[in-house]
């Protein structure tokens, strides 16, 4: 097990992502932050808090549950399917620039599912993808717009993001 990011580095990374979003959003545009459950949810909430301070205005933040949109629900290749939980997006995503936040970009399948799930909720003006960690192993043609940490990880290794709220510690490890 190797530590990829410690608590301070995670904090800096989220600061960086918030800075990117602030820059991209400009002053006038209508934006929303959406985290992919489960770790993306926590990261999105933290980024939103930092962003709100930076631009001195509240930004709507929601959580997307992509379980029903997974491409392995009815497939023999499927992994363990997590419990379905609620999508909690209380604002209208239509005509907004949506910043989608996830912990790790790996195969691209989660993001594909998230894009489909968002389509069922409305028609955003644009969707941008921001991730804490990006690694090789893409299976779908999906790339992130903002990456805080690009990790060199061997095939078969697993990047795990832990957050204080759920895991009791802020760190990213490679196993």
């Amino acid at each position, binding site marked *: 097990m190797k530590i990829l990011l410690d608590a301070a580095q995670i904090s800096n990374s989220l600061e960086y992502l918030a800075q990117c979003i602030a820059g991209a959003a400009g002053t006038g545009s209508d934006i929303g932050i959406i985290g992919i459950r489960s770790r993306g949810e926590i990261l999105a909430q933290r980024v939103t808090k930092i962003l709100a301070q930076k631009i001195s205005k509240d930004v709507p933040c929601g959580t997307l*549950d992509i*379980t*029903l*949109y997974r491409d392995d*629900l*009815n497939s*023999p290749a*499927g992994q*363990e*399917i*997590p*419990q*379905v*939980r*609620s*999508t*909690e997006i209380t604002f209208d995503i239509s005509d907004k620039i949506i910043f989608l936040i996830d912990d790790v970009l790996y195969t691209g399948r989660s993001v594909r599912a998230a894009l*489909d799930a968002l389509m*069922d*909720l*409305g028609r955003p003006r644009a969707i941008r993808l921001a991730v804490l960690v990006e690694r090789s192993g893409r299976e779908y043609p999906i790339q992130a717009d903002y990456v805080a940490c690009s990790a060199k990880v061997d095939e078969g290794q697993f990047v795990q993001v832990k957050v204080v709220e759920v895991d009791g510690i802020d760190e990213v490890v490679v196993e």
Partner: protein
Amino acid sequence: MSKTETFKWNRKHLLGLMELSRQEIEYILDTAEGFREISTRSIKKAPPLRGKVVVNLFFEDSTRTRNSFTLAAERLSADVMQFSTKFSSVSKGETLLDTAKNLEAMGIDIVVIRHSAGGTAKLLSRTLNCAVVNAGDGYGEHPTQGLLDAFTIRQIKGSLEGLEVAIVGDIAHSRVARSNIWALTKLGANVTLVGPPTLMPPAVKQLPVKVSYSLDDVIDKVDVVNMLRIQFERLGSNPFPSIREYSHYFGLTLDRMKKAKPDIIVMHPGPINRGVEMESEVADGKNSVILKQVENGLAVRMAVLYLVNQASQELRNK
């Protein structure tokens, strides 16, 4: 509300709640919580049952349950086939199993069955390869009703632990009562059955409940009162002298409501015989959650269809 995250659902059929553990019931309710949001969208659809076929095999009349299952399946993108005895070969003498096997030969994935004979769902689950969901079997069970009632109470009270619940009326003929008893007691509520002795099931002593023959004795003590419908179509002999006398002793009237706790939850599985089980003012009053029950029924049935499909998919893949 997600204590059940590490639990794994593996039942391909939902036949009744008696055989389910507390954890399994909580897992369904927690999952249903996640499905509620879909019905609030402008596009009320999600894809998990895309390409799957659900058959509503109804040998008894139904509006709520059948429509609720249909809508639930459609919101999950399944194709739904409707079957009712009136317009089928059952009227030409085809047996239940032949009908079901023929439907299965067309490639269906989930059968939702309602039948006047107890045990029908179980019989189908042993015979067919597809998933089977019981939508009411005789005097047996009506599991999705028990689940949606538990879901509704939990939504309002936060938990069922230690709650006092009265189920009032025609217990003997009620599959709703049976499924309620299992769901509510497993989740920690204390259930009292209330009704005339003639409408109590013979084996009531073997159930984990108390029995009272007077609604007036219990109305001031309970947190929830679930009023059952008098099933005129199933009453063979005369279990009570007259409808008026029944509602005099066991009807939920405004007068009785005055004695109840101010936040008592009033439930009814529908269809209501207004003026018999309860006065209209009570059915439409501020304590009534009858329409909330219907709304929650949709989310609960979506969860059930989703879970049995997941489980049967995994069994097939093994």
